[in-house]
């Protein structure tokens, strides 16, 4: 099944999923059973497991079961949210305060009670100064008032859209215990590697290179949960190994596309194994061509348009992503329900037009058929980004641009692109996180310091776009804010500071005995309190 591309398909997709899980239910009414051990493939061992500092999927995958956010993403909930540590949230008219009612009767894994003090500490001492994403969203957070133990009132120096704060709740608001972090060097605190939280599972042990073990939290605030006794993350860095381990029933779940796309059709036919594309809607990755506008050829809009016309998005989706992706129209993916607009210019795949644009721009083909040469740096993080690099080189050759690929490891790639700006074109996989202000506008905004990863380091400067981004960041009215972001998408696609090629989610492959899979849009990085195993 291809990734869900629009709302109707989403509904159809969920209806189909409902139907497929409902059938066995009718045949044999299945009550969730308690107990059992879920074994999951993990492809990396993050150095820091504190999601309040490192809000990234690799960290969340393990620590979201231990440390909870104020609210989690939801398919049905109001504004796409459902309560976790906060039970309700409300923004003021002037956009300067947001009040949270916190859950009562919650205790940390070490037995201490959870109070508003923990939220205030996490917000002011961790999210705002230390967190990769919180630095942007909470930059104007001044104070957090705690009138009683279960109320936290966030005060902002400047009006901050409530919509943005809401959209940031699932990924940016992991609450850590103040009593363990207060007065210590937060970034070097031992609890970063042995997290203590309020979540459904406690962190039991980590054997480097082998496994992580999370154990059932007997005192979880939702008394009927969690259903599993323990979760084991087996470290399997080799992607081919995950598929084999699933077939041998050594593991029951491989998330985040741990099984290579090319293997999905084959493994999906095996008995007792299902392939699931749901549960990643709030973690959409975007395949983007980053452009260095310092290169005189690339500073010319016609050249950028020509490159956009030279890319066959259908080929990319069908061949590189084997259908598990959707062609992108602009900087917001189509599966976002709040901000997406189709009202943007389209660049159809048209090599003749691309060649004509380059002729017009004053770059005729030389004797050897090339107009100019470029340095192309594909990001090494995914197989797909590397393959797209190979494809882009061929697509550019057809319009007379000789792209020379430079391969680097992850660290060298980040340095070359984001610090040294030693690239002409780069292939990047930024993530859309539910609101353009979280990690999307930064891709085109000017005036950022060198070295900020996944940001505009291509030297692009467009005052009109900068003004629009600033205006949207301070606009409180939600309809107006959405309209501004529609305009943002249109302007980005018109001026092409970067080229969005495709949007993709991940796939999970699981044994059919694992139940309650993929029941929220960030499922792989949520708490798994209601996940259970058929015995």
């Amino acid at each position, binding site marked *: 099944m291809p990734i869900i591309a629009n709302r109707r398909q989403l509904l159809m997709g969920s209806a189909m999923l409902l139907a497929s899980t409902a059938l066995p239910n009718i045949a044999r009414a299945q009550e969730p059973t308690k107990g059992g051990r879920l074994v999951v493939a993990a492809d990396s061992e993050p150095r820091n497991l504190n999601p309040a500092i490192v809000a990234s999927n690799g960290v969340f995958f393990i620590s979201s079961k231990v440390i909870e956010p104020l609210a989690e993403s939801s398919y049905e909930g109001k504004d796409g949210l459902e309560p976790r540590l906060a039970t309700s949230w409300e923004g003021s008219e002037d956009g300067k305060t947001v009040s949270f009612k916190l859950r009562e009767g919650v205790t940390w894994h070490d037995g201490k009670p959870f109070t508003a003090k923990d939220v205030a500490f996490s917000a002011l001492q961790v999210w705002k100064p230390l967190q990769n994403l919180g630095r942007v969203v909470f930059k104007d957070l001044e104070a957090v008032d705690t009138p009683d133990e279960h109320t936290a009132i966030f005060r902002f120096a400047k009006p901050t859209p409530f919509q943005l704060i809401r959209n940031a709740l699932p990924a940016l608001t992991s609450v850590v215990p103040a009593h363990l972090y207060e007065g210590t060097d937060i970034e070097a605190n031992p609890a970063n590697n042995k997290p203590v939280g309020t979540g459904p599972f406690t962190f039991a042990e980590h054997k480097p290179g082998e496994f992580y073990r999370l154990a059932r939290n007997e005192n979880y605030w939702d008394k009927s949960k969690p259903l599993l006794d323990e979760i084991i993350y087996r470290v399997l860095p080799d992607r081919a190994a995950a598929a084999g381990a699933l077939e041998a029933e050594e593991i029951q779940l491989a998330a985040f596309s741990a099984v290579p796309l*090319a293997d999905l059709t*084959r493994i999906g036919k095996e008995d007792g194994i299902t392939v699931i594309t749901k549960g990643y809607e709030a973690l959409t990755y975007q395949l983007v061509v980053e452009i260095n506008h310092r290169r005189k050829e690339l500073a010319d809009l016609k050249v950028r348009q020509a490159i956009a016309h030279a890319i066959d998005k259908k080929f990319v989706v069908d061949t590189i992503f084997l259908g598990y992706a959707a062609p992108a129209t602009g900087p917001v993916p189509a599966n976002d329900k709040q901000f997406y607009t189709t009202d943007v210019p389209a660049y159809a795949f048209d090599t003749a037009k691309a060649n004509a644009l380059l002729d017009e721009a004053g770059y005729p083909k030389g004797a050897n058929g090339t107009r100019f040469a470029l340095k192309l740096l594909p990001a090494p993080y995914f197989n797909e980004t590397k393959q797209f690099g190979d494809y882009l080189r*061929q697509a550019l050759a057809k319009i007379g641009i000789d792209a020379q690929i430079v391969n*680097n490891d992850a660290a060298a790639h980040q340095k070359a692109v984001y610090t040294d700006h030693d690239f002409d074109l780069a292939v990047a996989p930024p993530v859309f996180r539910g609101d353009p202000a979280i990690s999307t506008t930064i891709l085109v905004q000017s005036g950022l310091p060198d070295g900020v990863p996944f940001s505009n380091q291509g030297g692009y400067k467009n005052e009109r776009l900068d003004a629009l981004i600033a205006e949207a960041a301070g606009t409180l009215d939600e309809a107006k804010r959405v309209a501004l972001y529609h305009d943002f998408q249109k302007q980005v696609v018109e001026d092409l500071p970067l080229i969005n090629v495709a949007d993709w989610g991940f796939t999970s492959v699981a044994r059919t005995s694992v139940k309650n899979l993929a029941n929220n849009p960030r499922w792989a990085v949520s708490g798994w309190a209601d996940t259970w195993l058929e015995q």
Partner: protein
Amino acid sequence: MKRPVRSLSGMVGIAILAALVLVAVFAPLISPGDPLAITARPLLPPLADWAHPLGTDRLGRDLVAGLVHGARTSLAVGLAAAVASLMIGSIIGTLAGFLGGWTDEALMRVTDAFQTVPGFLLALAFVSVAGPSLPVIVLAIALSAWTGPARVARAEVLSLRERDFVASARVIGMHPLEIAFREILPNALPPVLALSSVIVAAAILTEAALSFLGLGDPNRVTWGGMIAEGRAVLRSAPYLSIIPGIALVLAVLGVYLAGEATVERAARRVGHA
């Protein structure tokens, strides 16, 4: 008595090597254009379409084009690395053997240092620091392969430098370096050259391993790179890894057998003389 058998394996080696060289030299004629160009439906199996007899890879690139142009890369790297390491090795070995004393000590300790580091690790480290491009890869392989020729050259020079023709060269007042490189080195070369087939074969394998790990030149087709790309679809399209793998085995075997045969022939000639 053993001669026919030996020459048979030699013949096979030479035949493989000749075929390989022909393919590499005429690659642009056999499959014109950029071998990395996307020319057909992706994952076309072998023998399904005569325009692409060995099929296509995940992006629709022709496997024959990849093999043919990959032969060029493999041979070029193998030969260049062998030439470079033989040159470095014989110069250092000759100097060490001829000059003796402290120079010998110093040069041989440096050789020891290079020999103690596993050759592949050294190449890996060098390429990942300097960035993958063909000259860097050649240099990286040469860096780990020059020690063998250096030791052999030194041993030869040690036995040659006491001979009469060296003494007479000294008597007529030749410069010591001239004696070393014009009188001794040419006589010390044959046993050093005998190492070349081993070095070429090892260099082809090292290049393939580097490309397999993603440290090859990404703008060229390499067999190692083809095997690595095929790995992701090993279960559904194993031919993508197996075919370049066979090519690699044949190339290494061919070079080795041909080298062995020439060395034996040379040895026999010396023996008869």
